[in-house]
């Protein structure tokens, strides 16, 4: 466990000793703030549904950007050889790095709490439960996209390629729900179940269903497992 923590701390330090994390947090807050407040006063409703609709779109580009360097950078500068020859399992390296990336996403998500505070101050009949589950859904979605991002990052030593592959995979998960009309009827149920949007919309409505939690947990677990296997595969190259 201390190995996971060491990797986690190293990654967080790496985020915050460069301007990258600060730029990410500021831009994330500004973009979400702009789109949320743009329509907030027009609707004249004290809910945060519009924010919960925007954040997944912003995630599509921001999370692959945050996670693209998690492993590819180590491969690029050669430090993968250093951490792979320390007494630490590949699984722990992946978990430590994943948690660091996920933590940054959670901090970014926290910057949007300002809108909830605004809503709480000026709004009436706010459904606090729905806000809570909405944030839970966004956190889980961030977890899935970060897992996809770290997997993409493990495939290459080029961060730009990792970014593009990351976006491509998260787009597939994002669009599945929207392309159901093109899918044969027999497969529609399966494709819909695979879609992140389907599960996110359930949670955002205020329903915490075990099936949704299992889905997010399974996808995160699958991509972290695949990332671990990719890291281990270097031994047999």
């Amino acid at each position, binding site marked *: 466990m*201390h*190995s996971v*923590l*060491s*990797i986690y*701390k*190293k990654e967080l*330090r*790496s985020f915050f*000793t*460069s301007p990258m994390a600060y730029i990410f947090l500021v831009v994330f807050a500004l973009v979400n703030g702009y789109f949320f407040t743009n329509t907030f006063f027009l609707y004249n409703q004290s809910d945060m549904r519009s924010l919960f609709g925007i954040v997944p779109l912003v995630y599509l580009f921001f999370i692959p950007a945050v996670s693209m360097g998690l492993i590819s950078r180590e491969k690029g*500068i*050669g*430090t993968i*050889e*250093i951490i*792979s*020859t*320390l*007494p*630490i*399992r590949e699984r722990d390296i992946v978990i430590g790095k994943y948690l660091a990336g996920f933590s940054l996403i959670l901090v970014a998500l926290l910057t949007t709490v300002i809108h909830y505070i605004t809503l709480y101050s000026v709004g009436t009949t706010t459904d606090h439960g729905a806000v809570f589950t909405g944030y839970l859904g966004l956190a889980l979605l961030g977890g899935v996209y970060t897992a996809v991002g770290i997997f993409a990052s493990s495939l290459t030593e080029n961060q730009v390629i990792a970014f593009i592959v990351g976006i491509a995979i998260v787009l597939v998960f994002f669009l599945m729900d929207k392309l159901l009309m093109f899918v044969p009827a027999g497969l529609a149920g399966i494709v819909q179940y695979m879609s992140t949007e389907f599960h996110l919309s359930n949670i955002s409505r205020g329903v915490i269903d075990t099936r949704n939690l299992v889905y997010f947990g399974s996808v995160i677990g699958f991509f972290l497992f695949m990332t671990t296997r990719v890291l281990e595969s*270097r*031994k*047999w*190259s």
Partner: protein
Amino acid sequence: MLRIENLSKNYGHVQAVKSISFSLSDKEIVGFLGANGAGKSTTLKIITGYLSPTDGNVFVDGKNIIDHNLDIQKQIGYLPELNPLYGEMKVYEYLKFHADIRGITGGDFKKALERVVADCALQGVVHRTIGNCSKGYKQRIGLAAAMIHDPKILILDEPVSGLDPNQIVEIRRLIKKLGKEKLVLMSSHILQEIQATVDRIIIIHNGEIVADGTSEDLISDSQGKTQLHMEIQNAEENAIQDMKAVIPSISLNSLNKSGDSIQVSLEYNSNSDPRKDVFDYAVKNDWTILEMSASKRNLEDIFRHLTYEGDSAHA
């Protein structure tokens, strides 16, 4: 302490290491010598657990690397060839990171830090960002990280490559000091470095071990051999290589074209003297001999003889 048994490694169809075996004992400095691409780094990467062997195994104190990878990695300190470092970290943070992963914390870390900082002479840079340090310091930072847990085995892949002569002397002194209490296995293709530092030399060529012993052993094994160095003009390389067919007592060690002349290194048993035959062959082929000198073998000659890729090298 460290035993390599029938170790092989294939990269696709390329056999980088071909069933090599050797044993190393405690408190020994061993030089792993070979030309670029000979299989040195691949072997070291297998010992450190970065790569898995295609066949064979590595044993440290009886434990094998396939089943006890982490246990063995705990006992090894490794400085990779290109010495990759996190440039944005401070030296202190980097050493702390290595210590944390190895479970060295609190007072133990403080002691370990003092030890490696003193050994590697890092006093002036402990709080400096690694990216701002000189190449010599970076090499010593890599070495300090490899030594932070006071390992029984140190694996150093080309530890002096790219360093200036003063830095080489410093690293050499440090390695010699470490060799009094640890097993140090260092690779290099710089012969003078190996000869000046190590107790034992293992020469690897095309993935196979072609020599193993002290430098004195290797030189005395080849006693009775004489080198004949020639510089020839107006000669075809093919005709030089064909010389062996005419004069069977010689073997061709190396052949290098330099400008309009060719540098040739031949070898023959000292109890025969084919120099007259070589001269006659040159005259017959209308070669112009600019230089011809005979000498006894040194380590460099032995290395070139064992690792020369020419057709006649092992004839």
